[in-house]
């Protein structure tokens, strides 16, 4: 029995350039005891639906058509007073980032009791008892003590549990969870999803789970609504959507999700997005034939890291005994062989990004050494140092932050060439155009500025810049985790092609195990600044050697195996 049904919902944002329609004629239903997933890529309008139900649309958005019927009553989101009677009481919402969802100046208990007493006629003591029970029910240990703690005393996962406890204060009938686990590590994500599932079973509430992550959808939801550019593309049972999608968009999107179960040569292209289809990289031209001036590297390992350590001072003091340190990297040793793609895997805070910054000499190691071929970093002459910098390049996670917004694409890509090579303006311009062709953007992009491009296109510009110095060694720090699945597939394919064509050695840093499986030859698992395991990639996925690796693999959200 569906108790929420939305039909033909349209949400519009009027603006100076005309009205933007965020959601167009969307219809869906939710029943008690059911988890409905709303899935789609960025800009699909999935969060807007949740906000519209809550009456929490950002200014100047408004519902311009359709209706929302909740438990037999028609909702009018514009009527704030009526909405407040429902909001929080019968419908409640969980937001993405637990770190910012709680008021930092009040204890968890104060916030819980306040919410309980808003919805129920209880004395302060009864409300406190109720709050302790709620904390216990969402899996917080020793709730009698924890209730008087402030939000900053809880870890991210624990905070999200507190958020869920707050949502449960009013015994809501419907919970809207907007990307509730996106800000969390994989291991914590699994726990929170389990908690939501068990709450649905024990309390018989309906849940709308808004997410971009097909793995979360596959593991958690009963039914799925697939959205694309504000419209519902397909609705169905989760199993049917995953295994036998009917619409072209759904099919191509699902095929683009990296698989954790086996390695493919390439990601299948996303045929729905013809406009974004990449050109096959056309290599050649004078630039790549020029061999590097760096002395030939004969030894097999290209990069050798020995007993590397990195220590930050977290508290400065005159007396050494008062100083506090944080060891981001502890006694790490590994080698990267020429031509291989080495995956560096770990949760947030494991030290993966510190390794990247050490290798690119942004940080100086506190101990140990890094060798590139025969050259030891930190002992080079200025000339060697400059050559070395051209050999090691990096691609960053966030393409919105990695390009200078005040520079044209041409200047962005030309900067490293100008710095490392003596070339005329015309030669440089030709090279920039070639590079833009290679990454599939075309020379016309040169005159534009970064804000004129989408996230995926920006990442292509960043790749072109990284290739501009003719590097041998490319560090990719979560290069696709800020991108949509379909774009991710394109960028990863591009990286694979370039690696083969240019004979690059790659250090691929990621928390996303399915992506790592598709990309890497060998894998290093890190935790708390130390190496936990080093294995061949397929070996790692088939028979992990340590408990930690097994945990990581077990908790990885999986798409059920497809044929």
């Amino acid at each position, binding site marked *: 029995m569906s108790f929420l049904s939305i039909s033909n919902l349209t949400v519009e944002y009027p603006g100076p350039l005309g009205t933007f329609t965020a959601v167009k004629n969307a219809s869906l239903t939710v029943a008690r005891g059911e988890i409905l997933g709303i899935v789609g890529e960025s800009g699909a309008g999935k969060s807007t639906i949740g906000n519209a139900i809550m009456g929490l649309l950002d200014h100047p958005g408004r519902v311009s058509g359709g209706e929302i019927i909740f438990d037999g009553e028609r909702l009018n989101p514009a009527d704030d007073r009526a909405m407040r009677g429902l909001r929080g009481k019968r419908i409640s919402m969980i937001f993405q980032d637990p770190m910012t969802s709680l008021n930092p100046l009040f204890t968890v208990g104060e916030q819980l009791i306040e919410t309980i007493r808003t919805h129920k006629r209880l004395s302060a003591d009864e409300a406190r008892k109720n709050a302790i029970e709620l904390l216990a029910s969402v899996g917080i240990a020793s709730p009698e003590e924890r209730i008087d703690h402030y939000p900053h005393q809880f870890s991210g996962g624990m905070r999200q549990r507190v958020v869920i406890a707050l949502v449960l204060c009013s015994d809501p009938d419907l919970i809207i969870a907007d990307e509730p686990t996106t800000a969390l590590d994989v291991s914590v994500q699994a726990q929170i999803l389990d908690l939501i599932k068990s709450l649905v079973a024990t309390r018989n509430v309906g849940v709308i789970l808004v997410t971009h992550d097909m793995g979360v959808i596959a593991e958690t939801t009963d039914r799925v609504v697939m959205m694309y550019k504000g419209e519902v593309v397909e609705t169905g049972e989760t199993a049917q959507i995953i295994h036998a999608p009917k619409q072209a968009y759904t099919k191509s999107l699902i095929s683009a999700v990296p698989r954790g179960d086996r390695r493919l040569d390439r990601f299948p292209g996303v045929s729905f997005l013809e406009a974004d289809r990449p050109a096959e990289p056309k290599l050649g031209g004078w630039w790549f034939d020029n061999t590097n001036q760096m002395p030939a590297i004969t030894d097999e390992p290209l990069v050798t890291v020995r007993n590397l350590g990195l220590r930050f001072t977290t508290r400065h003091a005159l007396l050494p005994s008062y100083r506090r340190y944080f060891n981001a990297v502890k006694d790490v040793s590994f080698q990267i062989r020429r031509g291989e793609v080495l995956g560096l895997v770990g949760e947030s805070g494991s030290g993966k990004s510190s390794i990247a*910054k050490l290798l690119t000499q942004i940080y100086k190691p506190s101990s140990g050494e890094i060798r590139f071929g025969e050259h030891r970093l930190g002992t080079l002459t200025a000339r060697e*140092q400059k050559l070395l910098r051209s050999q090691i390049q990096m691609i960053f996670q966030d393409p919105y932050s990695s390009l*200078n917004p005040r520079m044209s694409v041409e200047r962005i890509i030309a900067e490293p060439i100008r710095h490392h090579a003596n070339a005329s303006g015309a030669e440089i311009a030709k090279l920039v155009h070639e590079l833009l062709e290679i990454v599939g953007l075309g020379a016309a992009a040169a005159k534009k500025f970064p804000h004129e491009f989408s996230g995926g296109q920006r990442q292509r510009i960043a790749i072109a810049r990284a290739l501009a110095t003719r590097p041998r060694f490319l560090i990719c720090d979560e290069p696709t985790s800020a991108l949509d699945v379909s774009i991710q597939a394109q960028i990863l394919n591009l990286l694979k092609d370039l690696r083969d064509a240019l004979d690059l050695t790659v250090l691929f840093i990621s928390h996303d195990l399915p992506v790592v499986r598709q990309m890497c030859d060998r894998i290093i698992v890190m935790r708390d600044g130390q190496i936990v395991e080093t294995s061949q990639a397929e070996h790692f996925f088939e028979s992990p050697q340590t408990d930690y690796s097994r945990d990581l693999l077990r908790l990885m959200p999986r798409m059920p195996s497809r044929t």
Partner: protein
Amino acid sequence: MFTTPLRKLRIRIAAHPLLYRFLASPITMLATFLGAAMILAAFLAPFLAPQDPFDPAALDLLNSLLPPSWQEGGDAGYLLGTDDQGRDLFSAILYGTRTSLIVGGVSVSIAVLIGLFLGLIAGYFGGLLDAVIMRIVDIQMTFPSIMVALLIDGVSRGILPAEQHDRLAIFVIIFALSLSIWPQVARTVRASTMVQRQRDYVLAAQVIGIPSPLILVRHILPNVLGPILVIATINLGVAILGEATLSFLGVGIPASEPSLGTLIRIGNGFLFSGERWLIIFPGMTLALMVLSVNLVGDWLRQELDPKLR
């Protein structure tokens, strides 16, 4: 249909957000127009003013303390009346506005240059350099600008003989105002620089091997210009007010070449005897000028400061 080119123009304006929002804010446009008109009038003072207020030969004591021309006893030749020296108030205001604008503009420019340099360095390199610069800023900010300016004026009086002091007064005041404004600029620039330094495009430039001074000039500077523009505009108002205040207190621009503040100081002597035009007109001119600067600054802040959007 003629709407097509008009529509095209509208789309082009809308695509340029700052211009679009400017045209959508009539108060800001009015303030810009008013401010520009006043600046123009001030710098054209030698051509616009009916009298040269600095030329003793042009003054006639018989015409002293005339009320504005529309009041009883007013003289059509003296639009806003005259002061006790027989000086035409309208001319004096034109010249005074020019002095105020020059002092304010130069002080802010110097302060922006110093603050920009130190703020970029402190924000980018951090560490000990940052700590030292910011401590200086903190101590400097302990003493509000007026107090610093008064103090510098006092020191210069102690060091220089009186007649030299008068001649150098304008430089003393510019020095004092710049000294009191630069810490604010440095703070703003440092904060923005620290934000930009965290962004990956700066890391990318470091990975390429671009030297730090080039990174600062080529990458960071263009991205902190917005906040600098805001803080410079707002402080232009502060500097003009500061100069006026100092001159009013009698430690600023001497009466021989009066600024607006000096004019109000002169008028203050006639407050109780009824010649109120002597403070009202210069005061209103000052307030209008600063108001238009502040309106533009406030609008810029709203548009360029992501915190307020």
